[in-house]
């Protein structure tokens, strides 16, 4: 039996993308080999619980993977302040990830820290025969990270790219092919709006749900989200973001 492990992963590289966002590249050949876009890792910090981060990229040849860390509290500040060469306790890859095989064409939509898992999905799709388009939304130009020239960029402030949100960016897309899926990672209101946009155009949409997490492996049941129940008379089921998700079809989520 090949058991899953906790890894001691060395920080090979750290870059600050902006004042409050770090990008860490960690050495862990197993995670690099097995990770799929949409999956995450759980990383120990100097506080009690591990912190979950969507995998932003893998380099299978080098045996490394990367995560983006936005500082939102003490744990993320601690991790963003880590030095190259430090060793971190890591669990992963965790969660179900995106289906990157079932469709001919993909529209990837990111907001906030969603840029990181969306980057990984983009890298995989760009290396395949699939058609891929990316729409990024940021508050203003100071927040822009993980951008590429071929992306559709939107900012709420209008100081870069299209003035507006991701849905305004999506509206700018022309000639959307049949059998296109929308993959969206970002704040809840954004994912709801993007899912609604996709549904109105007959496109399948998958969202990556986020909730405060403890174990990351499905044993504690704290990170649940509501999905529609298959049982009659039951309004919803609580499912685990970490183990049953984080990726769910938009239409299955109770918003």
């Amino acid at each position, binding site marked *: *039996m090949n*058991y*899953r*492990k*906790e890894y001691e992963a060395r920080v090979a590289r750290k870059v600050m993308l902006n004042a409050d966002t770090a990008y860490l590249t960690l050495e862990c050949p197993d995670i690099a080999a097995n990770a799929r876009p949409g999956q995450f890792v759980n990383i*120990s910090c100097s*506080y*009690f*619980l*591990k912190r979950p981060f969507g995998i932003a990229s893998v380099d299978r040849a080098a045996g490394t993977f990367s995560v983006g860390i936005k500082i939102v509290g003490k*744990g993320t500040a601690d991790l963003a302040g880590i030095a190259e060469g430090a060793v971190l*306790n890591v*669990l992963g890859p965790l969660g179900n990830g995106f289906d990157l095989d079932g469709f001919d064409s993909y529209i990837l939509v990111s907001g906030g820290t969603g840029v990181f898992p969306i980057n990984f999905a983009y890298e995989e799709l760009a290396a395949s025969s699939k058609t891929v388009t990316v729409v990024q939304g940021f508050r203003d130009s100071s927040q822009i990270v993980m951008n590429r020239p071929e992306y559709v960029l939107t900012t709420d402030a209008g100081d870069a790219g299209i003035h507006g949100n991701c849905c305004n960016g999506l509206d700018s897309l022309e000639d959307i092919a049949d059998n296109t899926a929308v993959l969206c990672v970002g704040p809840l209101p954004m994912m709801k709006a993007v899912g609604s946009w996709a549904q109105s155009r007959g496109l399948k949409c998958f969202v990556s749900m986020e*909730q*405060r*997490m*403890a*174990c990351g*492996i*499905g*044993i*504690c*049941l*704290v*990170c*649940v989200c509501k999905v529609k129940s298959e049982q009659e008379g039951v309004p*919803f*089921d*609580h499912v685990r973001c970490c*183990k049953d998700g984080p990726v769910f079809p938009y239409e299955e989520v109770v918003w």
Partner: protein
Amino acid sequence: MVSSKLNVKVGSVELKSPLILASGTCNFGHELSEYYDLSILGGLSSKGLTIKPRAGNPGVRVAETDCGMLNSVGLQNPGVDYFIANDLDYMDSLGTGRIINVAGHSFEDYIAMVSKLDPYSDKIDALEINLSCPNVKAGCMSIGSDSSQVKEIVSILRSMTKLPLWIKLTPNVTDIKSVALAAQEGGADAVVLINTLLGMKIDIRTRRPVLHNNTGGYSGPAVKPVAIRMVSECNSVLDIPIVGCGGIMSAEDVIEFMIAGSSAVEIGTGNLVHPTLPVKITEDLEKYCEDNQLELSSLTGTLQLW
């Protein structure tokens, strides 16, 4: 294969190791089986089960604290019928002690639960009667914090089953000894000490509790001294064995619980931080027994108070 030096007994229940995975931190074993062979454990205590399925509490269910965490899951579980049909055989197949955690909102619930589970006594080593969950509105902790109710419900359940009854008690009481004694007088085979401490964390920006349930159960290394004190106090008055629980993160913690009076221990929140923690603790306990040429069970209750 675990060293025989780790073998312990909780009353009539023989366990190959004192380490039991605490209810609510291992589900029914499926997920942690991806990380190690659970047959190295003394036992696994199922997710707390209720008569009907429970969706659990809405909103934010976890808040990190210094050296621990608060949870307000609210006994989310698939219900006892689903468990019997889908998970009991799996738990039975794991090669470890099969402890079934039984929760309820009323005496009737506990009675109905034991009636449902008793016919499967060949697949169950002990029923852990949860009189201590702080995250539901009725039953559990409100029964478990009243000695007379504890004695009454335990004696009713005692008359219904020959299965060992382990009573999991709440620390949210003034005098844990009197509650533990009530469990013993009712006919309990063991007490499990402690469930979580009732706590609260406030978001100072919103001036609201972080947990949507307002309060939650506090667990992790921060609660260990409270648990050790309660095990020690109860050990001084009880004739039945104690299963210690609260903040165990290392072999040293296990040894401390056993010296205080525990025959076995439960690892809870530690599983959430390091899923393979029990593997490391098992190795360290084996080394401790070798280095000190002793059987681990010989430690139980060897505390010498000043």
